């Protein structure tokens, strides 16, 4: 099974993006499971994802990048045994770094995982301000990405979007950057086609 890891700061739009992409794949009959990790003790995103008719597992006892990596691995193994999904989407907590999650997955390998791609979601309305005050975390999230999605472009000013894109391109040179809003079907379709393996979509 393939794994898509979504990272990005709190409120950056990970759940919305996952819902949109997973619905596209699920509509074609693909078997997709989602593991959602929330830093708080009250899990709300899991319920939002279930409303999209997705198979969801919640991990809310800590952060999967530094506290409950073994729980993530156990959950992946359990999903594999019970559902044999073609794709597992992991929504990391907003304070997780992709590197920390990947380290946990490398430390406790799951044999059936054939590939892992990391998508970092960036809120264009807040990126510059957040980077200023939460520099190590925000930069680690960007540097750990295989692909970066800049969200909320309909809410941000043109200058904010450009500043966010320019900053992430400097932090992660050569990494593809997409800018989307929740209603941008064309870009979302391109993203889905690029991120969801063909055999899963088939």
């Amino acid at each position, binding site marked *: 099974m393939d794994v898509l890891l979504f990272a990005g700061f709190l*409120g950056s739009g990970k759940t919305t993006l996952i819902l949109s992409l997973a619905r596209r794949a699920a509509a074609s009959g693909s078997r997709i499971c989602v593991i959602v990790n929330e830093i708080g003790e009250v899990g709300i995103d899991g319920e939002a994802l279930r409303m999209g008719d997705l198979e969801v597992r919640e991990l809310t006892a800590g952060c999967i990048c530094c506290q409950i990596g073994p729980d993530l691995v156990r959950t992946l193994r359990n999903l594999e045994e019970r559902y044999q999904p073609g794709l597992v989407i992991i929504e990391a907590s907003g304070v997780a770094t992709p590197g920390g999650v990947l380290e946990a997955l490398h430390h406790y390998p799951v044999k059936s995982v054939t590939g892992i791609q990391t998508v970092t979601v960036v809120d264009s*309305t807040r990126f510059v301000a957040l980077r200023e005050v*939460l520099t190590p975390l925000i930069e680690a999230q960007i540097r750990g990405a295989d692909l970066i999605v800049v969200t909320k472009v309909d809410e941000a000013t043109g200058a904010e979007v450009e500043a966010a894109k320019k900053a992430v391109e400097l932090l992660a040179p050569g990494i593809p950057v997409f800018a989307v809003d929740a209603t941008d079907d064309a870009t979302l379709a391109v993203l889905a086609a690029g991120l969801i393996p063909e055999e899963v979509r088939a």
Partner: protein
Amino acid sequence: MSDGLHDFTLPSRGRGETPASTPRLLEPYGARVVLQPAQQELDAEMFLKALLEDVASACLVGGASVIGHLKCLVQAGDRRWFCNLTSTRSGAACRGEGDGRLSLQDGARLDLAVLVYGLPASTIDGLVGDALRSLLEPLGISWSKNMPSVVHASAGR
């Protein structure tokens, strides 16, 4: 968490903006609120939006340095409404089932998560209580609030 990535030194702020005791860490806050059965309907969108915006504003006034994410889910019968907020500039956004009017005939359950930097959970709890009081008491809706150790929105399903 103390790996250098999750701990943050807040930027220097103006005099009086940050109390000396302000924690530097994100202290996740979560609560479950039970709305007691009542005759009236609740306009979920209006209520949730006002709740999150009131709590976010109060957190900033109270010394929060960064608004991370505020989110909530109210369930009444088989209807659910979600709302979330990441900045006071853009305000809260809600979505849910039906026209947003929830019957409180059998009561309702509200799960709320507040993730802000610079305020302890106990302070946030007080601000949430103030916001709930100011929104629900004029409507005559009784409520109770818990800060559970672990709450999943899907618990009990």
